[in-house]
């Protein structure tokens, strides 16, 4: 961190970095450091990138307001930057800029997405402190009487029939496959 700040001061002294940029950059660096520690976030020495995780999912649907209301009321996602212009951000997990994920729900744009050979057929979200009875009870209260799947890993469909999976850390874990 000290080396990084030293570089910032040098850029400020040489005029390459303005006062505002200096403070913003250091603010972001502090947030990254706070979220995971400098060593954990350092870029790899080899080629390619060190991926820290998913930043966002871009979810296109016929009516973003319907998706917004579903995901915020069902899963507690926080609605941000909804200006009533066909899109909103739905934040969850750690704070924004500190490891948080977000779903960008939006209406179709003028140019439809190019067809691809790949498809994201579902997204699975982790629910910590999973309590089977409480999770199933909460789903039932929202009108999902018969989710598919198994204890600790359940599937429901959202208002646009997109497959949504929720799971705990035991049932869905890459290292337990």
């Amino acid at each position, binding site marked *: *961190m000290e080396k990084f700040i030293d570089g910032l*001061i040098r850029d400020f002294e040489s005029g390459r970095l303005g*006062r505002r940029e200096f*403070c913003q950059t*250091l603010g*972001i660096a502090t947030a990254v*450091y706070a979220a995971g520690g400098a060593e*954990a976030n*350092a*870029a790899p020495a080899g080629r*390619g*990138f*060190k*991926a*820290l*995780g*998913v*930043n966002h*999912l*871009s*979810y*296109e649907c*016929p009516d973003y307001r319907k*998706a917004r209301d579903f995901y915020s009321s069902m*899963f507690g996602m926080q609605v*941000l*930057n909804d200006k009533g212009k066909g899109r909103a*951000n739905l934040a*969850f*997990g750690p704070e*924004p*800029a500190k*490891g*948080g994920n*977000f779903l960008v729900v939006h209406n179709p744009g003028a140019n439809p997405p190019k067809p691809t050979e*790949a*498809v*994201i*057929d579902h*997204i*699975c*979200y*982790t*629910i*910590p*402190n*999973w*309590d089977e009875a409480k*999770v199933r009870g909460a789903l039932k209260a929202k009108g999902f009487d018969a989710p*598919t799947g198994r204890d600790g890993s359940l599937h429901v*469909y959202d208002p646009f*029939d*997109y*497959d949504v*999976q*929720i799971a705990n*850390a035991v049932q*869905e874990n*890459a*290292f337990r496959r």
Partner: protein
Amino acid sequence: MEAFFATKLDEFAKGKISRRALLETLTVAATTTYATGAANAAAPDPALKIALINHISYNCPDFRKAADWYSKVFNLDQVGATKIDVALPFGKKGEKPFGVTANNVPLTSMIIRSRDLNAPQAGGAPRRKSQAVIEHIGYTVADFDRERAKVELKSLGVENVRDGGLYSLHMTDPFGYDVQISGVANNALSDGA
């Protein structure tokens, strides 16, 4: 915190504190936030409160080809391979997800598959045809610098690299899927603001 940085920078610019004092003060302030943030991270959750993306289920004609591409570009390990899929976690076994301190939130993974989406699911019911689509995914990478990233992507042979907004780049994976990368500057507060 940014106001504090600005104050100290002003003091330095006016000659009130030395360069060494500025460096030490800012370093202490930035790294102390680390300890405070970690201590305050835990909070109770209601029954359906989501903590993080667990996995992305990515289906394509050749999961090995896609997995190798994502492994190469993002330095991801491949674990738990079967005849039809493989998982690529964002981190090593035992690590916690970026920004998460809780023990019951696993690393986010991509599960890259090649399976028939028209086949009946485990319960016997056919998969519904969705009106919604995840048309691209953004990934956060460490130390993101757009110009450096362009050079790196080019050297990796990545196709269709292009600017995306203020803070990111888009590219195309081997199956034509739109992939975005950015640093933490692209987040739920800045995106679409």
